[in-house]
């Protein structure tokens, strides 16, 4: 069943430690030596966007800013480049979350695509203005792949919330 507002399924409340570990997982995935392959998505942006849409009361621009700093240092990029893009992403995602969650998953993914593309474009524009080298169009394939991953990501990241609270095999219903 789809975990949207139109479904009748009630999910468990999210656990803060799970949000934390999913972010850590995303950071680790970003650190893998796959960054130079074409079409590898920015995992942190994807997971951040997901939580900003799902749980905008728990995850907001503060998270985005800290993760941005972390990615800037890890990338060897100019400090502030990821921060700027992630903060904007977090703001837009949480502003749109009430609308996006009404849609079925595939359409949610379509609405997330412009956010993720904008994240890349902002970073590219910031760096190109100050005279960096254009990284090639492969740089913009990442968000498209991330969009395709929206459906599996939703499933995986909501998995702990699907479980019933008390496991009672003899429950009447």
């Amino acid at each position, binding site marked *: 069943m789809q975990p949207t507002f139109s479904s009748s399924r*009630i999910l468990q409340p999210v656990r803060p430690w799970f949000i934390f570990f999913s972010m850590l997982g995303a950071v*680790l995935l970003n650190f893998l030596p796959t960054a*130079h392959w074409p079409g590898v998505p920015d995992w942190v942006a994807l997971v951040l966007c997901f939580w900003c849409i799902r749980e905008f*009361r728990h995850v907001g621009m503060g998270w985005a800013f800290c993760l941005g700093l972390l990615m800037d240092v890890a990338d060897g990029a100019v400090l502030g480049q990821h921060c700027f893009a992630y903060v904007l992403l977090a703001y837009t995602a949480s502003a749109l979350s009430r609308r996006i969650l009404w849609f079925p998953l595939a359409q949610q993914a379509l609405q997330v695509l412009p956010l993720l593309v904008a994240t890349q474009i902002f970073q590219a524009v910031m760096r190109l203005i100050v005279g*960096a*080298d254009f990284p090639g169009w492969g740089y913009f394939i990442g968000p498209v792949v991330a969009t395709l991953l929206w459906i599996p990501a939703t499933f995986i990241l909501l998995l702990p919330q699907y479980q019933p609270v008390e496991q009672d095999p003899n429950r009447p219903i």
Partner: protein
Amino acid sequence: MAGIDHAPPPFFKRGPAPLALLTFYIAVSLAIFVVDLRFKSLELFRQSIALVVDPVQRVAQTPGSLVDYAATYLQGMRGLQQENSELKHAQLSTAPNLQRLAQLEAENERLRKLLAVKEREKANGQVTQILYTARDPFSRKIIVDKGQQAGIVAGQPAIDETGVVGQVTRVFPFSAEITLITDKDQVVPVQVVRSGQRSVVFGLGNGQLELRYMPANADIQVGDILVTSGLDGIYLAGFPVAKVVNIERDSAYSFARIFCVPIAGVENFGEVMVLDPRQALPPAPPESTGRPSSSDKPGLGGKKKKTAAKGN
């Protein structure tokens, strides 16, 4: 009730408005962007974050390096034997030069003493292992496994067995970042081996280098080797940098467009050598303020420069 979010919606205590928060964070991000780019004064801040990030990054690199290790392990005897014979061959072919090197160096030193020219600096350094390529797609940088703990400082040049690879640009406690010479607008002062002409070579960002500000009629040919000129006080003289591959001479422009490729395997290697920083150059002669009084000084400076270039 257990299935419903326990926290009551925060009706009264909501913190700053999202737009205010956004403005704040955007302002901070842009501020640190400009400060980091223009004033480079956030290195300590970056190092402290790197202290946390670096171990995580090394852990994340482990699977990749394990795969590499397994691949080389399974490569088998044949490959190793072949490599071994190639290395022996290479060693033999360089033997005549190498064997006389010690004697030549001694002779050079003695002659320099006779001429009262400053002694040629010896190239010392430390071998570092490349940990990974920096993720930033806008630049060309690598991270090596020695940093402040090993006494590495920003500015040290890095070479591999064939030529100049790049320059240390940032130092972290346990690692250092080397910017490759092919990074956009990375500059290396060079000298053409054949003609002795000096110039600077700029990285283009696409794996090539460009020799800029050479007049259209400059004496340069395809295949010329460029070595470091040593005039900058950073790179020692005589390390191969690049090879000229393409020259476009257009009479409409006053400069020729000269493209080169790096000689070192700049984008594929496992270990590099980070050379120790050079001894400080003698202070530059003071700028002449009044013309007639200091007419001899610029000439002296020119002579000094020339001897240094010739000597190297």
